[in-house]
């Protein structure tokens, strides 16, 4: 038989700020969120409630009632991180803990509670521990996940336990809100006159399903345990990080590197255990006087070798200004990816890719990885569209370049450069580009392209001409046939 403990933290966003030591929470204070096209109060502290602020009130109304009210918009990502941290803490009570966002935890306590002298003692122990952390909690224990949640949420008092096998009777007095189904369904039920979950027991499930939809029946059977509703344990993400605090601050670069080496060895050992590597590492250096400094390095391919981490950090560490020393360090791996293990390098081709990846890391860490690019072939007929440019770290080099049957320019202008025509013609007999005059000796063309109508704005037909100038250079000229007056552009240069 399953037993589930639901831990609901009704004031989680508010108490997160209290724990942070936010001075505003000492007076009337509320957390607000944008709901139904207005800023509304979602959580209010005791002083605000005393002054008459209620949840769901719009912020202007609340301000009118309580002029000294201070507020802060909700920050769901941070609240999730906080809940995730609590989930790690809750590991001490049960091997299987699940998150129930936004503000509840589910603990599967079947076969565990006797370790804490029974369910009630266990729940009280948890509530006490949470109170020590300045967190308000409400706890429900039942046979099913949905029932435990309903007890925590709508039960009387801060702790309610449904003894084994009596869930149905205890749940009967719960309001319709306890059903885990879409809000519209609950509204319909309430409009019909149902007030409590118990009211639904008398109606045949088939009738319920026909009138209100299958979701209501599913929610009801999940509550009473007719339908399996397991606690889905959320796996803890392994953390690839290591930290070190020192009794005395250090400041020499060689010392910092030694610390970094030891941290990197720990992190890399953990990464290697899981056959993983990381594309980014960040190092937090806590200086005695100036606080935390965060340094980042990136890698062109997942890295799990301490030596290369140390060598990539050399430059940012050298730039760090440490006056009075640093005494706390944390190295963490980010963007963790599986490493494809290779046999020892035997061929030059492999050695080359290794060395090249290392070079890309070095260049990218200083210039930015978006500045290191590579060409990929693209299947298009328009010459300037026949290739694309991507970051070199994204994927391998694109194969499949086909040398064109016609000679192509080696240099292309992204925006064709307008030319000043001196002696007109088709192509012009002489033109000026960059203040140099060029006389056309020979020309071949036109090479005519229709635009790609499905993605081009510019729907003009293009004519390209190959031109040999008397001065030497060979150009690729562009013109739009039919345009009057005819304008000429420089599209590229030949080798």
């Amino acid at each position, binding site marked *: 038989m399953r037993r589930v403990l639901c831990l609901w933290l009704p004031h989680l966003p508010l108490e997160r700020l209290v724990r942070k030591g936010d001075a505003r929470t000492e007076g009337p204070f509320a957390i607000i969120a944008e709901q139904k096209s207005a800023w509304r109060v979602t959580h209010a502290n005791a002083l605000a409630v005393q002054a008459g602020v209620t949840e769901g009130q719009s912020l202007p109304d609340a301000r009118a009632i309580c002029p000294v009210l201070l507020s802060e918009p909700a920050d769901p990502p941070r609240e999730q991180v906080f809940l995730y941290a609590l989930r790690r803490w809750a590991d001490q009570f049960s091997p299987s803990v699940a998150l129930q966002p936004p503000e509840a935890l589910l603990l599967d306590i079947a076969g565990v509670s006797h370790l804490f002298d029974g369910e009630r003692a266990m729940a009280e122990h948890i509530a006490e521990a949470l109170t020590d952390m300045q967190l308000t909690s409400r706890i429900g224990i039942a046979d099913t996940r949905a029932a435990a949640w309903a007890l925590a949420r709508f039960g009387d008092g801060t702790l309610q336990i449904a003894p084994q096998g009596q869930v149905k009777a205890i749940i009967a007095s719960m309001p319709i809100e306890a059903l885990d189904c879409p809000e519209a369904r609950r509204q319909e039920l309430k409009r019909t006159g149902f007030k409590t979950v118990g009211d639904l027991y008398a109606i045949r499930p088939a009738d319920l399903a026909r009138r209100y939809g299958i979701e209501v029946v599913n929610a009801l059977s999940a509550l009473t345990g007719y339908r399996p509703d397991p606690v889905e344990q959320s796996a803890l993400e392994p953390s690839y990080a290591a930290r070190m605090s020192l009794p005395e601050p250090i400041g020499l670069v060689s010392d910092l590197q030694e610390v970094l080496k030891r941290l990197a060895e720990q992190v890399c050992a953990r990464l290697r255990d899981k056959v993983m590597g990381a594309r980014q590492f960040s190092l937090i250096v806590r200086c005695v006087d100036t606080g935390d400094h965060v340094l980042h390095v990136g890698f062109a391919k997942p890295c799990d070798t301490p030596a290369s981490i140390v060598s990539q950090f050399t430059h940012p560490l050298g730039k760090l200004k440490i006056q009075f020393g640093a005494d706390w360090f944390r190295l963490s791996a980010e963007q963790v990816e599986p490493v494809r293990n290779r046999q020892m390098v035997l061929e030059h081709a492999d050695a080359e890719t290794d060395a*090249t990846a290392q070079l890309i890391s070095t260049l990218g860490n200083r210039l930015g990885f978006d500045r*290191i690019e590579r*060409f990929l072939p693209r299947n298009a007929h328009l010459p300037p569209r026949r290739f694309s440019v991507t970051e070199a770290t994204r994927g391998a080099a694109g194969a499949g370049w086909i040398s*064109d049957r016609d000679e*192509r*320019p080696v*240099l292309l*202008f992204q925006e064709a450069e307008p030319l000043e025509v001196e002696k007109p013609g088709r192509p012009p007999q002489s033109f000026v580009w960059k203040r140099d005059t060029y006389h056309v000796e020979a020309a071949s063309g036109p090479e005519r392209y229709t635009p790609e109508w499905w993605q081009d704005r510019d729907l003009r037909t293009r004519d390209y001409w190959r031109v040999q100038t*008397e001065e030497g250079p060979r150009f690729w000229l562009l013109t739009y046939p039919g345009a009057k007056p005819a304008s000429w552009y420089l599209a590229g240069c030949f*080798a």
Partner: protein
Amino acid sequence: MFVWKSEKGRNPSLTRYTRKEHNKNIMSNTDLKYADRGMVFEPGRHASVRLENGVFVARGKLHEVCGNGSLGFVACLVGLVEGPVIWVGYKGQRATLNPDGLAAFFDPSRLIMVRGLNRADVLWAGEQALRHRGAGCVVMELGDGPDLRESRRLQIAAEEGGALGLAMLAGRAQTSAAHMRWQCEAQNNRDYPARWDITKSKDGQRGSWRVRYTNRVRGENAPGLVSLASASAA
């Protein structure tokens, strides 16, 4: 004058590992590295890109390329060496390389483009790429030529890494420590569309050529070289 002497009677701080010895060691390393890859191998010298008439463009050195035909020269040389090509240029240039056109000279998948914001970025990236063994050829697009100090640093980096270093100059060339300087001009000539001249060479190589690009198939892009001198003699 007081000179501190060690037991052997020589000032230890003066017995230095000379640059020449250093180069010799590195050269033998690079020779081995590239020789067994099937590159041109000349005993006692760098493995190098051999052109016509015994002229060769040495690897592990920095070469300057000037003139409006320099892109053709660089593309030909890249086609003659192996390994990845690091092409260091500026960000936000109006003209970009066209891999479709370069495919006639070498496989564009070998190209890795690095975009610097300023000259310091370009020089730094070039130096790193030359020093690293990950590149077969490093091309830098510079405005004015590198000065003595810049080129010396690049030269030392190239010696350490063994890659072929090419600096394309759009502006003025300066007095530099580069090994060779090539002047490459496009020609109004149907048969020979380019002309290459050696305007400076530290090991005394001379020559000027009229050039035709033959074998325009990837992998065998040896430029067809006709020495100007021999052409005029014939």
